[in-house]
């Protein structure tokens, strides 16, 4: 048996819509097999993984908290990926956003004014964007591969955060714990419905970013430029678009959104700096971007689904004693299935069962 691909004359509109759902279905089947292999009842396990977190109001709030950074980062990355710039260092830009945004509430904590929060958010965005500017600069000036440089900077950012929290920014009243001082109330992102759960403004930022990016990609010249340069740099040059400027735009845009996600996470749900502030949001967001087919609206839905895998991982650990790492396995599998199913959009997949006689005939 062998698999042959046959290019479709145009792309299949049907599979463009359906393929993410096929991928989700396949992931759930693979998950059921995995749970069975781990000696757990697959129905129970899938229920506590994917349904249980949705049954209570407080846990819907948690879903929003996890989804917000994923959506913010992934929306930015979609612009990057569409323009054929491979920023995979969003994790680092997220961290730098968190650190730079925290300068005000940590170093100038005496300052209390309603201005603190907006200044923090802007500084967070600037921090993320500045950090993303490094691989962009190296790519445009020195032709350096942005995949590798942006990824290396993640490790550097993680070490920098570790140093600053354990060193200069360690809480003077913190009993020597590796934490910064706790933020004052004016530096904390307000909660939306404090009566029912912890969800904060970050999810609103995610909604706004999604809509604005969708509008830009669909109705603005800039969005058109992103697509043209991404699909064919040559065609873009003929249209008078500058590839180098696009590299900067894509990186600064995605860096700023990752930075916003970072400072929102620090200010909204952690409320201080800690040696680790992200459970891999920057990498999971890559999956979100692809599951959402690089479309901001799709990404919003995909962000909610991936946030569910984080919550499900925690829930499954508590209720049926599964290791929490299983969430990461789910995420990896999902990306595999998404990519595989996307093949259906451009190709017909045919299974050929050739008899031995036919194979011999082919060889002659």
């Amino acid at each position, binding site marked *: 048996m062998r698999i042959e691909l046959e290019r479709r004359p145009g792309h299949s509109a049907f599979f463009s819509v359906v393929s993410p759902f096929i991928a989700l279905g396949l992931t759930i089947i693979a998950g059921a097999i995995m749970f069975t292999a781990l000696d757990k009842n697959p129905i129970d396990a899938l229920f506590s993984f994917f349904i249980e977190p949705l049954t209570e109001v407080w846990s819907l709030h948690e879903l929003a908290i996890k989804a917000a950074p994923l959506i913010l980062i992934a929306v930015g990355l979609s612009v990057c990926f569409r323009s054929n710039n491979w920023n995979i260092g969003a994790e680092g830009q997220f961290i730098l956003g968190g650190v730079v945004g925290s300068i005000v509430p940590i170093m100038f904590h005496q300052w209390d004014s309603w201005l603190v929060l907006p200044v923090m958010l802007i500084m967070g965005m600037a921090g993320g964007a500045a950090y993303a500017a490094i691989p962009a600069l190296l790519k445009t000036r020195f*032709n350096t591969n942005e995949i590798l440089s942006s990824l290396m900077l993640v490790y550097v950012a993680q070490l920098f955060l570790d140093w600053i929290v354990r060193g200069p920014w360690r809480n003077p009243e913190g009993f020597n714990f590796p934490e910064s001082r706790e933020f004052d109330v004016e530096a904390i992102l307000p909660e939306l419905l404090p009566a029912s759960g912890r969800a904060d403004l970050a999810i609103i930022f995610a909604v706004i970013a999604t809509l604005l990016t969708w509008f830009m990609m669909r109705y603005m010249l800039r969005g058109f430029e992103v697509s043209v340069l991404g699909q064919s740099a040559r065609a873009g040059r003929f249209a008078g678009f500058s590839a180098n400027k696009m590299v900067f735009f894509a990186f600064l845009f995605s860096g700023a959104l990752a930075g916003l996600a970072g400072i929102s996470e620090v200010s909204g749900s952690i409320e201080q700096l800690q040696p680790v502030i992200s459970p891999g949001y920057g990498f999971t967001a890559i999956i979100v971007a692809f599951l959402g087919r690089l479309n901001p609206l799709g990404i919003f839905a995909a962000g909610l689904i991936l946030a569910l895998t984080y919550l499900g991982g925690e829930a499954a650990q508590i209720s049926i004693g599964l290791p929490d790492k299983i969430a990461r396995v789910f995420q990896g599998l999902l990306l595999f299935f998404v990519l595989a199913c996307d093949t259906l959009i451009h190709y017909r997949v045919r299974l050929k069962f050739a008899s031995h006689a036919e194979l011999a005939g082919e060889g002659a």
Partner: protein
Amino acid sequence: MELIVAVLLTVTTAATPLLLAAMGELVVERSGVLNLGVEGMIVVGAVVAFATAQLSGNPYLGALCGALAGCAFSLLFGFLSLTLVTNQVATGLALTILGLGLSGMIGENFVGQPGVQLEPIAIPLLASLPLVGPLIFNQDIIFYLSILSVVGVSWFLFRTRIGLQLRAIGDSHGSAHALGISVIKTRYLAVMFGGVCAGLAGAQLSLVYTPQWVENMSAGRGWIALALVVFASWRPLRVLAGAYLFGAVTIGQLHAQALGFGIPSQFLSALPYLATILVLVLISRNRRLTLMNTPASLAQSFVPDR
């Protein structure tokens, strides 16, 4: 003298996994495929090698299973990127994400256990030579394999017919296909070789470098290996040089941490990553040279017309 040997030995230990993983990826990229999943294959190789060695008590069986696990994992990448022509960059990332998750899950019961170490094998006579004896001829089997891989890959790529075919595929898969060379089959084999090498590199980490299992113990080595291939402009001997240079940087910063110097340890730990960026910048600054060295079909999907 003994101190120098001891320090140089740690350099070889730090360089071996980089060398192996980069040598595997070099062959993969020479065939025109970009597998960004090296990090994932290393970490899966590491956990499988450790678990097998732990359960069987035999580190050699561990190393073998680590290599096989890397190979099996690379086939996953191969099936998607070669048969289903998915985007190679995204598929490689998926492999890394899945590998980190899967290894964490497999390794959960092994955290903190003391491991089984691969013992050095002294080569008779040569091992008693001064300096080079203990450095080169009294090492573990994975070290020998890593050196063998440099010789083997150089010979294979530049002295054999199939090596020439592999390079032809990497430079122009369309022409190679027209000449009747089986593009997909060769690429599958190259990807599998890359998987074996990365798996062995992982086994070295958990059986030699630090004989225990720590989550995410690959610590970015897969990515450094990818950078080394670019740094080496796709030439085996330069990969050897680059891997040892990075081994030296890694060990140098560890010694600097031990000595203190008043520099925060995190800054020193960041050095290998910063060095990677610096080296990439220096090597790719010359656009024309980079273009000349890069396999022309790198990361492009190929669908044979029939």
